[in-house]
């Protein structure tokens, strides 16, 4: 498979994930509003079996904190994939090293780091809640995100070096 085709495949995949995270964030926000103002029973199945009913009956404040973490992470991940779609649209196989692409990759790395930190805080918060006898809800994936941020920082650095090389090449008579 050629690199161009791989990039196209990645673009399609990124669109699927981007739409998926947007739907996830939207669906959770919508069902949260329903659970708070219309029907508290909807906290039993917020999104694909996500049951926060015990937390809802324990404390509405804690419930809102957990929902905020879930939505914030989903929105940030959607934005990460949006940035990836933009980057993939700008990468040219024949001329990959441009300032713009290097900048966008470092931006993705920073956002991945922020998302990873939020996921880590959410994980710790959930552990604190579980000590109060409440069930755990989901795997936040903090370590994966932080690992990904690390790899992306290295890739961003490689791109910066690549841009320098390319500029040197372009300047050579």
């Amino acid at each position, binding site marked *: 498979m050629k*690199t161009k085709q*791989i*990039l196209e*495949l*990645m673009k399609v*995949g*990124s669109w*699927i*994930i981007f739409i*998926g*995270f947007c*739907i*996830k964030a939207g669906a959770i926000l919508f069902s949260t509003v329903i659970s708070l103002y219309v029907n508290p029973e909807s906290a039993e199945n917020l999104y*694909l*079996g996500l049951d926060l009913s015990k937390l809802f009956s324990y404390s509405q404040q804690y419930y809102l904190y957990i929902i905020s973490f879930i939505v914030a992470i989903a929105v940030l991940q959607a934005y990460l994939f949006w940035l*990836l779609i933009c980057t993939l649209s700008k*990468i040219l*196989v024949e001329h*990959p*090293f441009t300032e713009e692409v290097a900048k966008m990759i470092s931006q993705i790395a920073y956002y991945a780091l922020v998302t990873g930190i939020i996921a880590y805080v959410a994980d710790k918060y959930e552990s604190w809640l579980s000590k109060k006898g409440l069930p755990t809800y989901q795997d936040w994936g903090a370590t994966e995100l932080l690992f*990904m941020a690390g790899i992306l920082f*290295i*890739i961003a650095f*490689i*791109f910066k*070096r*690549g841009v320098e*090389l*390319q500029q*040197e*090449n372009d300047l*050579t*008579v």
Partner: protein
Amino acid sequence: MELFLDDANINWNSSSIFKAMTPVFSKTFWIWSTFFGGMFVLVCLIHSSTFLIRVMLRFKENLFFEINNSADLKKASLYFLSGTLIIPVLFEIIHFIEYMIESILPNKLQTYTFDGIIEYVGFGIIGLFIYVMGEVIEKAISIRNENDLTI
């Protein structure tokens, strides 16, 4: 084996996209397939990590645009893709076969499409991203060679 997995609280039905309501294959079948699948995934991910560590060590020595880095990144991506996609896809196929067998009986298929698909596509993108990075390094090497040859 069964006792060991029971104690370790391992779920042999796997968290999958397709899930038949009543399992057709025995518990032992799932335990062994989970065991061998897990081993395969572990070996592939260890190989992938080894290649990535080699690349990182070369980066540490400031050897960025080397042909070995490009080759190792491509190998790492192939092992990563095999480790993260082959076994889950095989499990999905087995679940689907289970459903096909079940469909003779009045049973239903449960699907958890969204999260499962997002997870698999995510793994695919990470693997392909590592592969593209290998290609990018190859391109950088050709730019550098061109640069070196220019008087």
